[in-house]
């Protein structure tokens, strides 16, 4: 997995609450058996009309937001279906960080597996960042994972919390399966013990 470097990029505002994974990537695109190429269909039903033409009002279609790397979103982002196609589509579009007041659990975990940093901030901070994102491509937001800060284009900095282990994996681009394979003896031991204690499993 790609390492998460310090990110300086355009942030797009999506203040709508409860943006679900059906909105992020509609089911018609789940029929793929690959992980790549979903960025073009990110937010498909909000982004295109039925003829496939772009809807100009949609934030990512606006000229100043075409190179968005950071999303500032309303509460409970990524709720609904567990589809990892959602973070795949987000990453494929080029977005590396999503900031909200809260995320749905499965989506939150899926982000880390795909080099995306989800950041939880209190409402008053999200309000400030949302305003900053509204400035468009003239503004650059800075996300520093190492220092755990988000800095607005005006230089105002806000700290954020992230699980230390998840941070380490993201900074180093570590592969989970590889990490777990290092503990294969523990898994063997657990299975041997369970064969005695709960043989019906």
């Amino acid at each position, binding site marked *: 997995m790609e390492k998460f470097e310090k990110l300086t990029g355009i942030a797009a505002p999506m203040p709508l609450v409860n943006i679900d994974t059906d909105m992020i990537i509609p089911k018609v695109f789940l029929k793929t058996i690959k992980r790549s190429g979903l960025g073009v269909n990110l937010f498909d*039903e909000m982004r295109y009309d039925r003829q496939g033409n772009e809807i100009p009002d949609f934030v990512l279609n606006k000229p100043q937001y075409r190179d968005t790397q950071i999303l500032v979103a*309303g509460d409970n982002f990524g709720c609904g279906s*567990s*589809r990892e196609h959602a973070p795949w589509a987000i990453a494929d579009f080029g977005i590396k960080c999503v900031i909200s007041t809260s995320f749905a659990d499965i989506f939150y975990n899926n982000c880390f597996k795909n080099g995306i940093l989800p950041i939880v901030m209190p409402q008053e901070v999200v309000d400030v960042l949302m305003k900053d994102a509204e400035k468009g491509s003239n503004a650059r937001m800075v996300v520093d994972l190492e220092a755990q800060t988000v800095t607005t284009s005006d230089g105002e900095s806000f700290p954020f919390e992230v699980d230390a282990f998840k941070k380490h994996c993201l900074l180093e681009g570590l592969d989970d399966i590889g990490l*777990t394979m290092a503990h294969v003896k523990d898994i063997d031991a657990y299975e041997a013990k369970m064969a005695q204690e709960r043989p*019906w499993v």
Partner: protein
Amino acid sequence: MTAPKTLYDKIWDAHVAHEQEDGTCLLYIDRHLVHEVTSPQAFEGLRMAGRKVRAPEKTIAVPDHNVPTTLDRVSGVIANEESRIQVEALDKNAKEFGVNYYPVSDVRQGIVHIVGPEQGWTLPGMTVVCGDSHTATHGAFGALAHGIGTSEVEHVLATQTLIQKKSKNMKVEITGKLRPGVTAKDITLAVIGETGTAGGTGYVIEYCGEAIRDLSMEGRMTVCNMAIEGGARAGLIAPDETTFEYVKGRPHAPKGAQFEAALNWWKTLYTDEGAHFDKVVTLKGEEIEPVVTWGTSPEDVLPISAVVPAPESFKGGKVDAAKRAIEYMGLEVGQKLTDIQIDTVFIGSCTNGRIEDLRAAAAILKGKKIKDGIRAMVVPGSGLVRAQAEEEGIAQIFIDAGFEWRLAGCSMCLAMNPDQLSEGERCASTSNRNFEGRQGYKGRTHLVSPAMAAAAAVTGHLTDVRELMTETETA
């Protein structure tokens, strides 16, 4: 003496294969359920890394999301090419990696969350995962069950573990008795209406209280199924005699002395007196009414007697979300919910596709016809549910009323197969999500219980099911 533990604490502690200093654990997974949509990339990942499935005997695969539910599917061909490729990929992967498999042609095929319990794969005290958010369903057995993404599917296939940190404990208590016409679906929707769709974020919920205890296993599965819609990682119900009775004799449940040994352990799976919950929500069972959703989030829940709310009655970002929802749903503020005319009725899904759900709907439909012009379909949750409903005469009640009687699958719950709403089509649905476009592009979904869905089919509008019940039923 050890500190009192919650049910969640106990199951968690029984599955930690390794713990780091920071509390990150390798949680051992007892059952891994797999379907065709979220698994192909995971199997491909294994193949590319030259890895095997660590515990194929604990892995159960079944195609459900994409499969057609029309009777012509027995001819074996899926018309939509992408759907066909996904199902064929699962066929191939199941064979190559040697996992348990129920192909489309098998009578036991159905929705993965219905097949697992039905076949006795799901047992109390287990950890159960699947690349599907409604894995929460299995929590009804007192199993720690939750959805995972495809990277985690690959991780479980390769290692039979997940890298996890523990969630917090939340208790949802439903006291007292439910009133006639009120079902498990109304409980679970009412809870989400109370807590909101993010109310459970960071928690595992334990549902308890008299109204929960009184539910059958089918009802408990309905309640836990939608824990995810409340934002929780998982929902749990402590196993009891109802659970043990359901499990006993299922094909993959333990037998004889093994069953007795298992039972001894299962009986220890309850929350100890004095155990700590980080959050507690209590609802009175008597006060829950039959409910419906009016908007595009499962938290948009109101009693059927209510009216479409004004967006200004909400706070923060929900004001704009409610405005958008009312417009999307084509409703008027102040409109009575019972005045909402519907086009379609869908009965099925992992939320309400079990035999008891079909019985509840059939009880309302018996001797009645659906309203002219309504499209109505029943999609049983599995081939075995379908067979049982046919044996009990329920299938005939649906057919006589004017419903289509389909084969098993996820169907219109997420509309990945041809069962979809068209633009503007309005559906009373027993499924779990009323998101924009969920049941078809610009389709409009009102979530209801099976009995409420049947009532709506008869009258052609959202209806209080109690009006269609006889005096003895409502007494």
